């Protein structure tokens, strides 16, 4: 192993010194570290094409600048905060949308992990309910960037939330999962208000607040699929139980 490393290093030196203007290359094929220096507070996440941080207070939500990322055809998907942010090229976990003028279809949408999931798209946030591991499948680490928790009132179910799901280029699109079709593909129709992270004009949906003129979600605390999963005086918004204002 050490010999192989030495050979590779020697080869690299030869290769890199061969030309006067040495080419520069990036390490990392699938995931890479992309520090996010503007991140503040307790936790941060991409929300569509916006960067959001939460905390220190329970209702503090703010928009921060998103760090630059290498060029990629389908964009990047990131998790973590500050210097610990890691990003993955979106093309590795799902297929591209195929589009015509009015509709785009993603045949194999991303899911939280290898198990069985049923998903819904609410205001550009994907919320999934999982009820079983996939039998006869060797499990791999979960997909990057989901917030997950146990579904309230159930023994085995989980709820996961994706604040920055794959979306076709050139918003606005109104996306949904077609559970009537084989494999539950994701369908996006031209139009709609756009995903969370949009401008506040026209109001922000329940479970989000207007901050820096953008509709930004409260920090996810996944645990509900429907309103009945939440306690009295609460409703389920984007997978999290939220107090209904009186």
């Amino acid at each position, binding site marked *: 192993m050490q010999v192989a490393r030495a050979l*590779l*290093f020697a*080869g*690299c030196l030869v*290769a*890199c010194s*061969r*030309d*006067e*203007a*040495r*080419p*520069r*290359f*990036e*390490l*990392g*094929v*699938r995931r890479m570290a992309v520090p996010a220096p503007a991140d503040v507070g307790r936790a941060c996440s991409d929300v569509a094409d916006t960067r959001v941080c939460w905390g220190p207070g329970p209702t503090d939500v703010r928009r921060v600048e998103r760090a630059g990322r*290498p*060029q*990629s*055809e389908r964009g990047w998907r990131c998790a973590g905060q500050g210097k610990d942010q890691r990003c993955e*090229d979106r*093309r*590795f*976990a*799902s*297929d*591209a949308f195929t589009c015509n003028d009015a509709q785009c279809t993603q*045949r*194999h949408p*991303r*899911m939280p*992990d*290898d*198990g*069985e999931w049923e998903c819904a798209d609410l205001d550009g946030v994907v919320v999934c309910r999982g*009820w*079983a*591991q*996939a*039998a*006869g*499948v*060797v499990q*791999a*680490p979960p*997909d990057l960037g989901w917030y997950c928790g146990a579904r309230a009132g159930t*023994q*085995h179910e989980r709820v996961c939330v994706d604040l920055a799901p794959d979306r076709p280029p050139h918003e606005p699109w109104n996306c949904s999962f077609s559970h009537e079709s*084989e*494999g539950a593909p994701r369908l996006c129709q031209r139009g709609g208000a756009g995903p969370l992270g949009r401008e506040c004009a026209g109001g922000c949906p329940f479970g989000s607040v207007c901050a820096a003129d953008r509709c930004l979600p409260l920090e996810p605390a996944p645990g509900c699929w429907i309103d009945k999963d939440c306690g009295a005086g609460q409703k389920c918004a984007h997978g999290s139980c939220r107090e209904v204002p009186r």
Partner: protein
Amino acid sequence: MKRGLPLALLAACSSSPTEPSVHVVVRAEVGSQISLAQSQIEPTSALVGMRSAADQIDLQIRAGTPTVSVKTPGACPLEIAVADAPAKATVKPWLSVAGGDLAQIGFDTPFSVTLTPGCREALTAKVEWKQTGGDPIELITENNGFVVRGRTRPLDAAVPWGIVPLSPRTRGEVELTATSAGHTLKVRVSAAARASGLPSLALSQRVLLGGAGWRVKDHAKGGKAEITQHGPLGAFQPDARGRWVLADGDGRELSLVVGTHTDTLLDCGRSDCHAGAAGAAQGTRMTQVFERGLRGQIPRYDVACALPCHTAGEPGLPDGGFTQVARELGLSGHFTTGPEAWNELPRPLRRLGGVTCTACHGPGAIPEPAARWAVLRSDVCATCHDAPPRYGHVQAWSATRMARADRDDRARKTEGCRGCHTTAGFLAKIGVRKDAGPPTPDLQLGIGCAACHAPHGEHLDRALLRARPAGKLPDSARVSRVCIECHAATTTLLFEHDAPGAHAAVPKGCVGCHAGEAGRGKNHGFQVDRARCGRGCHAEGVPKADASIPQRIEVALSKLGLKRDAAQPLHARELAKVADPKRRRALELLQLLAADPAAASHDAKRARALLGEAEGLLGIE
């Protein structure tokens, strides 16, 4: 001109792009099986940055560079004009097959394979064809080798009533290899897709039907497919998902479930269903083989070669299997191995990467309860384990008496016989499955794979040999405990008495001697390997069986008015009651001796003792 650098080496040189540059995505053509890992890019000085994977390279090309070329083994050279650089460029294979379904051409049917050149250079090079797999067929080439014609061989498989099972051995597959200017392309042509005999079909999978006068009685919603004739057999190719009902000329019905591997939920293990079975399957080699191969844990693992049997689905069919989904994901179909290769596979492929539940129970939803017995057919295992010379299990087993254990009507239908003459009966006898009996009682399945192997039950080893209680066999022979569920007591002298003879101590027990032929799976013929005996206790020479014993048994039986008949063994006959206690005891002893054709070998000393006792009771000198 400087030679370009392999990408693997380039990627090792790490830095980040800072100069003005153009972003170009170079992708391997979908389904081409091209790997870009060994691509060479020239001039290297034009590259500011790069990210690479097997089927896509993201290049940052220095602004102002006129052209960049990409040379890839097995592919046409690609020249990218950077000034007006496209955002994407595709590396095309040197040669590819032009359209057409080559996975189910039909038996004894002419076919042609037409090649498409990926570039001008490929068009001018001559193509040579050679058959590199399957039973020999005659090939005729045309158009400088860009077209090859042949004819598939006639069907050479058993034709039971209903779906005709077809394995890699019987599906009439040939492998053809085209060579052009040092590039090679392997093409597989098959008369039919594999079929397990299970009434669960993949969308577009054409199956042959044994029986006569078939028609579609009930179509699935939106389905229009009808029965066609394929020689003397009916053929059916479903064009819609859901339930179909076919009926033969006598009105006998066959209910089919049609779906795809990706349609079918894999939540079999949820707590109120098959949690035990799912848990047991999780750790087996069948589940893990593709994952281990991709991770590089299996030496010399050939991913492309493994796909038909180590992943779900039939390559070439739109059945929601691994290769189809890989195409839908836009992948080239070339998969590199490495410690992280499994984790980097997209989720939809991981769910199909392995011998999954649907590989045996599907591909559509699991059949209706009345048809679930069908999964006990060895034809299910044969879809992979009947591929000699690589996998000889089912072919070797087919030649054994176990495969014919239920050829007698009574053996299939009589409750007392089913326990050791049918797979379903055996599994019921040992308490692992209810025996509802097959709804097609004429079908002969023998004692099949599922009797001795437990893919999701308690098993002993990586061969998934069914675990059974210790009984009288020593631990060294525990792999044979499943055998003595039937090959004991009334049928095999070796284990009848409390102190097993010397042979019971043979390491591995029964299969220690009945080791069959050497070679993968060929041991499932279970013939005695006399060379083994010579290497062990009988180093001085393997003694010949005492030939007088069978003759003496015949003489003793004749004293009771009986005769040995292989077609009707004593234990299957209804013998008249013998009133005389001496003659009754003699009959018991002779029944035991006669039931074991190898009594003289299994335990000659005891055989002689028992026979002597019987002869004494019958007054034979």
